């Protein structure tokens, strides 16, 4: 006589089977996880985390004397010197403000480009995107140097204005100042800032616009009530993508900033390459890193980024 297995019995069997399959899958997943994540984790650990930790340790070194990798008595020497020098703090503030300005301008100017690519590019959107990315094919230095040709006393702008008899003497205020740094960096960042905004805009369900139109929303209302709020995660991503590296920027100020265009990053670079004072340069870097992290944490809390992303 055969008996039909009871439902609980069947469920139990099914559970065991599922667990077995689950265990197998778990192993596969774990192996896949390590295979995928180990190389980048190793890379980040070896070339980012360890140097960062070394720099942190170096910032507590009293000076440069002695073997580099011997153990040293931790000292707050560098931090106390740094805290006592007001001009560095002021420059950190100026650099942060410049980064803020540059990020705002870059995002505001990138938004229409991303909007156009997402909603009006049609079949040519890919081609326009390539056009946007063309500057990446040349070196960063070359693009910054091009601005010297634009802004110099014998540059494109001055030559044009002189030719048009608008000015008699070339304008010297165009290059070698902080405005030139801001202008150049906005240009450099626009393609970078466009990409996350574009990605956010492309994720918007177009049927929302149809529904809004059916309910009588005009284009401006559609933009303000649908497009803009739904693209905000991309906007904030673009903002931080520009803001964070710009605070520590040093190449562009070096090339177009002149005597008064230095940013905080230039001073850090000077302590590493012109002063042979790695401990002080490390302390300055740590302060900037900590400051940027605090600002970003504060800003994300303020704008409640998690809610936006969800």
């Amino acid at each position, binding site marked *: 006589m055969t008996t039909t297995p009871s439902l609980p019995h069947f469920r139990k069997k099914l559970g065991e089977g599922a667990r077995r399959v689950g265990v197998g899958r778990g192993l596969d997943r774990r192996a896949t996880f390590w295979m995928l994540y180990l190389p980048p984790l190793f890379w980040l650990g070896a070339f980012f985390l360890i140097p960062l930790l070394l720099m942190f340790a170096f910032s507590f070194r009293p000076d440069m004397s002695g073997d580099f990798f011997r153990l040293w008595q931790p000292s707050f020497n560098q931090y106390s010197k740094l805290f006592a020098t007001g*001009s*560095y703090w*002021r420059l950190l503030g100026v650099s942060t403000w410049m980064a803020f300005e540059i990020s705002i301008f870059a995002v505001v100017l990138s938004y229409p480009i991303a909007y156009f690519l997402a909603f009006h590019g049609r079949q040519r959107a890919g081609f326009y995107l390539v056009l946007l990315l063309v500057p990446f094919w040349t070196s960063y230095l070359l693009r910054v140097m091009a601005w010297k040709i634009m802004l110099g006393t014998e540059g494109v702008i001055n030559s044009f204005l002189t030719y048009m008899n608008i000015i008699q003497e070339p304008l010297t205020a165009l290059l070698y100042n902080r405005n030139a740094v801001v202008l150049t960096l906005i240009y450099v960042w626009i393609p970078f800032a466009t990409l996350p905004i574009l990605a956010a805009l492309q994720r918007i369900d177009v049927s929302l616009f149809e529904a809004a139109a059916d309910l009588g929303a005009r284009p401006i209302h559609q933009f303000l009530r649908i497009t803009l709020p739904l693209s905000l995660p991309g906007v904030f991503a673009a903002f931080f993508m520009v803001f964070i590296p710009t605070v520590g920027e040093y190449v562009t100020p070096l090339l177009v900033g002149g005597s008064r265009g230095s940013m905080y990053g230039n001073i850090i670079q000077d302590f590493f390459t012109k002063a042979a004072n790695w401990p002080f340069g490390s302390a300055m870097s740590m302060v900037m890193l900590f400051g940027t992290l605090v600002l970003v944490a504060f800003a994300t809390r303020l704008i409640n980024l998690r809610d936006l992303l969800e």
Partner: protein
Amino acid sequence: MNPKRPLLYSLTILTLLLSACGAAPATEVPPDQLTGTLSVLDWAGYDQEDFWVDFKNTYPNVTVNFEIGISDADIYAKMAAGNQADVFHPYSGWLQFYVDEGLVEEIDTSKLANWDKVSDFHKKLGQINGKQYFIPWDIGFSSILYRTDKIPEGVDSWAALTDPKYAGHISMWDDGPGAVTVSSYIHGYDETAITAEQLATIKEEWVAQRDLNLFYWAGEPELQEGMRSGDVWAAYAWQGSYALLLGEGLPVAYANPKEGRNSWVGFYGIRKGTENLDLALKFLDAKLAEATGNNVVNLFYYGHSNQDVMKSVTDPMLKEAFGLNDPDILEKTNFTPNLTAEQRDAWTAMWAEVKAAP
């Protein structure tokens, strides 16, 4: 025990002894058969073969690998951090720390065939604590390079670099110790004993100078471009830039300031504990040789420590650039003294504060 074994041992020892006695004294490998790899930490551009042509021609099978440092500070920091370069290239002012930190080997000059061609004066500049740790190699001046069409009245003092008449058209070298040197000449300070008060005055002056200065130059091409475009009228410069721009037909002159020009010397040192000591000495010796020296002078417009090379200069433009026409030029020249670690830290920090000032 095998009775033949002691005999076998004796014969072997005898053979070894005989072959040892019969061998010729350790002969040098012919230069063209010498192999090996030498690592040199040098400045950008100095890796060109013109700058080590004698070594290349004499030891064609030795590989020379160059690593580039971007400044004296960078080279020093790299060596202090354990860089394994066999040979490195510091300049005046930046020698003392290598000795203090035990990073440099004393040079056995008896192994340098070209050593006698170097003047005693320049030899002495490479000595620290009475020992020859460095060999002098390239030599140059620092002074004010100016556009004669923009400054027809000429320049006769280092104070031109802080003169409001040239506002917006001055370019200072981006270097703290260089700035202290200029101020010391202007004020007559003893450069080797700058006090904290003097350093504070120097800082204030350079902060004020920032409004007159167009940009601080870090590399010579940047300065040369500024002079060509007419944006820069007066600049702290080395004579290589002067000779180059003069050769291009640009209306430029190189001042003989009343406070005296500055002179600097580039040296080569050997890393303490290098396994390539012999090869490094051969490299240094070849650096002092004539063909290399002639290239330094004729292609790059810097002086060379080999006196025979300098005596053979006939080009009037080069003679003018090196001041060879002026018999008193050395008396009117200030040589850069060696910095102490404290001076290095204080002067570079002062310069960073100038650049960071509101």
